[in-house]
């Protein structure tokens, strides 16, 4: 057998395998290290801090769990959230994340390692990303081999699509969920391959963990029955499928019911859940999925039983039995459905049933869902941003799966189709797409590398013999002729290779598809060569070298891209902001914490703070004050109330504030330093959500001036009167002295004479230089942070003379009150 490069001959197979496994372990270790390290940008650039919004709640819940124990946590009723309603926390969360941190915390403390719970929370996601890499390795290993597994592990370790949800400090459910997802899938594949009840049980246990950890468990609930169903329809029923699926289903379903938030959903339609807005359409999906789940389970039982019967009787008798069984089952099923519909237990043909096919349903009709940026459709560039060249290799990998098409490949294909669809619908579901992209790309790339690293030369001797038969003498003709099909795609590739580094975005697609197709051809060639003695293959070192170098180049670019994206885009805690000065030095903007600590230090412990719901968790976590609404968003009316208060004039808003015991109102204002995620930019959502509940009082068009959203002189009167506008620009003009004040977010010049406030107090601590710092005990003390990002107003108490606050203010400013004639209460009866 000729080889392209010399191989050492005197190695025993044992040494080779041992070295290979050692190298694998080292590689996995390094991958884990890289996965963890690349997630630490946030800690290095900023500090060990919990990021964003939801993680603050998780962190707060974890602190309760760590300090009070599991059972206390389980029964925790939080009276400070959703004031005055409160929130039953134990029954409305996925406790998996907190339980994980709690276990780690207690374990470390049992080992006398007094690690702060915050650091555990911050570093949980990077830690689990290493486990994810390992689970992906195991999964891909089942699909192809160890080298593909290592590639997949490396990909998932650093791919931005996953890093975006798992940097240090991003203490969210997704941090552990992707590991659970991949490991459950691995166990499922393993169980299916071996027909092992052991792996089925493990899959069920991890499924339970997943259910306890993330709402995305529905994805598993979806995938596995679908896979089983497709296998069944493909005529691939086997006892192994029966064992794997039944075990997983029976234990997994019972286990998933232990989580209170999920509860009886698998067996009962709970209509009240449908009222929860966000969940309404997903609820129906859920029910449908559970129907599928159970349906597939029942189907499998029937098929298994039929198989058993078939093994005992002749085929003719089996057919008779089958016919009579199908008829009787059909009749019974029909009567069962009629009876159930008659009894009103199921209503299969209502309009809402169809809404589950329409993924845009919730977005169209429930503004609170549409208002979350995560729920927007994915833009094309973000696919490249999150996955880089994997997105181009991904289809090639799926094609490879079609070529092998064992049971597990069917799984990957279904996964790829489903995840691609969902990732296109919603940005946040990019996360579920990422693992399968990594797996499929790893399969494709490893096939490519296998082909081009394989030292085996095509069998030219055979060719020679055959050509000798034909009568030609030159072997080189034969060689070049056989090499032609391989060379053809390669030629086009070579021309493009040079362009690749210049413009990796555009050309890469063609390039990679070229690579993939040639790889596919090559694999086919090598397979057929071994069986039918065809002589397609790779000749010489130069072609090998070119392809390998190109691949390595791609990988290098991938690493560069991942590092760059991670460090620049995904590692901002969003609680602390960073800005770069023209000279390159970094300036930290810490307004949020400044303001939250001000609240914590200077306000009464039971002072209710009203803000838009985005900041509810942060206020609860950092300022430890009751909030009206938070990121849980379970009560749309309550949120709409806040929206109404924000978008109404002061006189209308004041009674709302007083009735909800609000002491402080907090707004985010980015107009001074150009922080674009501020409340005025979210303001239209507040208006829309309020309009959904009070269509008579709040109307969106009133906030526009001829269709334009303006905050300057031409802002509509309703806009200028609204509490949000007033709170944002109150005394903003004072900053600019004689100059025209400028809002740097909206790029508009604000009126030089700013709005006045009568019902809220304001005091700008940020302007210490102006010397108007009064002590915090004064009645209308409030706060504006250093860069004006957070502004806090105190809601004034009722006037002690019982006057309207507006009149009282006018009086104290020395304005003469307009004399109004008293209105007679006496109304004469008309028609006399």
């Amino acid at each position, binding site marked *: 057998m000729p080889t392209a490069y010399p191989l050492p001959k005197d190695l025993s197979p044992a040494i080779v395998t041992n070295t290979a496994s050692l190298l694998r372990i080292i590689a996995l270790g390094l991958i884990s290290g890289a996965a963890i390290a690349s997630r630490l940008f946030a800690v290095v650039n900023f500090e060990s801090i919990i990021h964003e919004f939801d993680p603050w709640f998780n962190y707060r819940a974890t602190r309760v769990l760590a300090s009070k124990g*599991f059972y206390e946590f389980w029964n925790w009723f939080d009276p400070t959230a959703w004031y005055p309603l409160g929130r039953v926390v134990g029954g409305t969360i996925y406790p998996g994340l907190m339980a994980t941190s709690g276990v780690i915390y207690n374990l470390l403390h049992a080992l006398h390692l007094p690690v702060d719970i915050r650091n555990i929370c911050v570093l949980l996601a990077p830690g689990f990303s290493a486990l994810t890499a390992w689970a992906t390795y195991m999964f891909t290993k089942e699909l192809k081999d160890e080298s593909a597994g290592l590639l997949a592990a490396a990909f998932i370790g650093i791919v931005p699509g996953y890093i975006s949800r798992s940097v240090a400090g991003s203490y969210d459910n997704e941090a552990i969920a992707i590991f659970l997802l991949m490991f459950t899938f691995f166990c499922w594949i393993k169980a299916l391959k071996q027909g092992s009840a052991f792996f089925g049980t493990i899959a069920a246990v991890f499924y339970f963990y997943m259910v306890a950890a993330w709402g995305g468990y529905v994805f598993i609930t979806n995938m596995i029955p679908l896979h089983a169903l497709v296998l069944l329809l493909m005529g691939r029923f086997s006892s192994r499928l029966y064992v794997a699926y039944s075990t997983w289903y029976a234990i997994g379903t019972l286990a998933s019911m232990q989580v209170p938030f999920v509860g009886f959903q698998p067996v009962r339609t709970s209509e009240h859940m449908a009222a929860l807005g966000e969940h309404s359409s997903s609820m129906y999906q859920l029910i449908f999925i559970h129907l599928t789940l159970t349906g597939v389970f029942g189907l499998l039982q029937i098929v298994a039983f039929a198989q058993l019967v078939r093994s005992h009787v002749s085929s003719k008798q089996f057919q008779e039995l089958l016919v009579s069984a199908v008829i009787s089952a059909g009749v019974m099923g029909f009567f069962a459905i009629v009876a159930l519909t008659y009894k009103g237990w199921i209503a299969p043909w209502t309009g809402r049933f169809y809404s589950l096919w329409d993924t845009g349903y919730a977005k169209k009709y429930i503004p609170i869902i549409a208002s979350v940026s995560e729920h927007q459709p994915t833009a094309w560039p973000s696919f490249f941003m999150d996955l880089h060249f994997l997105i181009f290799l991904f289809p090639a990998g799926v094609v490879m799966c079609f070529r092998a098409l064992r049971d597990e490949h069917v799984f990957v294909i279904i996964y790829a189709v489903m995840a691609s669809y969902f990732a296109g619908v919603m940005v946040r579901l990019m996360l579920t797409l990422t693992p399968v992209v990594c797996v499929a790309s790893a399969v494709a790339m490893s096939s490519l590398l296998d082909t081009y690293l394989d030292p085996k030369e095509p069998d030219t001797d055979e060719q020679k013999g055959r050509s000798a038969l034909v009568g030609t003498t030159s072997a080189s003709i034969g060689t070049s002729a056989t090499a032609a099909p391989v060379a053809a795609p390669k030629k086009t590739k070579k021309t493009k290779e040079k362009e690749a580094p210049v413009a990796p975005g555009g050309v890469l697609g063609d390039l990679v598809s070229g690579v993939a197709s040639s790889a596919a051809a090559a694999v086919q060639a090598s397979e057929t060569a071994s069986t039918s003695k065809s002589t397609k293959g790779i000749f010489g070192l130069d072609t090998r070298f070119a392809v390998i170098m190109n691949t390595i180049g791609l990988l290098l670019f991938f690493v560069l891209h991942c590092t760059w994206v991670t460090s620049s885009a995904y590692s901002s805690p969003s609680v602390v902001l960073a800005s770069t000065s023209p000279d390159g030095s970094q300036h930290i903007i810490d307004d949020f914490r400044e303001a939250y600590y001000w609240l914590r230090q200077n306000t009464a412990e039971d002072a209710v703070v009203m803000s838009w719901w985005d900041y509810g968790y942060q206020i609860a976590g950092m300022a430890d004050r009751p909030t009206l609404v938070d990121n849980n968003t379970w009560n749309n009316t309550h949120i709409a109330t806040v929206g109404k208060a924000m978008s109404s004039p002061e006189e209308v808003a004041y009674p709302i504030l007083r009735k909800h015991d609000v002491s402080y109102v907090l707004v985010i204002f980015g107009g001074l330093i150009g922080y674009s995620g501020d409340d005025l930019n979210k303001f239209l959502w507040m208006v829309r959500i309020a309009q959904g509940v009070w269509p008579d009082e709040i109307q969106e068009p009133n906030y526009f001036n001829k269709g334009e959203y303006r905050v300057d002189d031409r802002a509509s009167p309703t806009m200028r009167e609204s509490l949000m506008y007033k709170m944002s620009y109150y005394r903003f003009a004072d900053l600019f002295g004689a100059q025209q004040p400028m809002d740097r977010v909206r790029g508009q010049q604000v009126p030089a004479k700013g709005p006045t406030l009568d019902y809220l107090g304001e005091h700008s601590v940020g302007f210490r230089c102006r010397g108007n710092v009064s002590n915090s005990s004064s009645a209308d003390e409030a706060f504006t942070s250093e860069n004006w990002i957070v502004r806090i107003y105190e809601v004034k108490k009722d006037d002690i003379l019982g006057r309207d606050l507006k009149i009282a203010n006018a009086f104290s400013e020395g304005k003469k009150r307009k004399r109004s004639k008293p*209105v*007679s209460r*006496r*109304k*004469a*009866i008309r028609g*006399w």
Partner: protein
Amino acid sequence: MIPRITFHLSWLVIAAGVHAATLSLQSPRVTISSSDATQLLSDTLPSIKRPEPLTLGASDILKLTFQVTENGEGKGVQPHQTFLRFYDSVSGEEGIQPVRVTPGGKAKFELNMARPPASLPPTTDRPLAVSLILGSFVHDPAKYDLFDLYVPTSSTPAPHPDEASFHVLPPIVHTFRPEQKLPPKVVSIVFAALVLSPWAILLGLWGKIGLSVPHLVSPRILPFTALLGAFEVLLVRYWVGLKLGQVLLYGGILAIPTIFAGKTALATTGEWRAGKH
């Protein structure tokens, strides 16, 4: 405001003590004329006896003239405050109308029912009690019930927008789902027996097939089965009273010997099976 009132009152008391002077009405006179100026009634109000109730038509004009004097003497005084009060004792509606008094103590008040003053309260078919209230820094305050006045009925006043929030709310009554009941004991027992009956069938079938466990007490098998049994006991204990953490801990501890015992036991049975076949 409250402290100011108390101050004034105390000041008044002192003033009353010093002067002991009172204000009185001189020649109070009431005239009612219709809209075309025909006089319907003209009367001097008696100072002691309460007069007959007066009736005012929809367009009639009531005129009231009087002079305020000190101690019933002829010299008129100007009180600091002079009010006419219209009061419906049943509905509690009242209206206060200030009256201008000249420095000579003379006063004239005109009530035109075609254009009633804003202070006139809403009325029903009941009369309004009209009284005169005099206040002065130097005299005792005085109040004179003048007469009862029937005025045309007005429509009932609209309730104040916040009226609803000034009432006692009805007590909140919670509606609970009815407590689910256990079925009668007999039914329970019958069904318990029914649910347990498959055990009999199981044992019967096994007996028929011939259940034989020749190696059950073999020292290699027994630990495994015993440990499996221990697991079940642990789980039952969990149901009875153990905490989750304890169960997981004990289960973890129990798992280690079980794995080893299982390996031995199953390897042994594997050997037997291989030997048998």
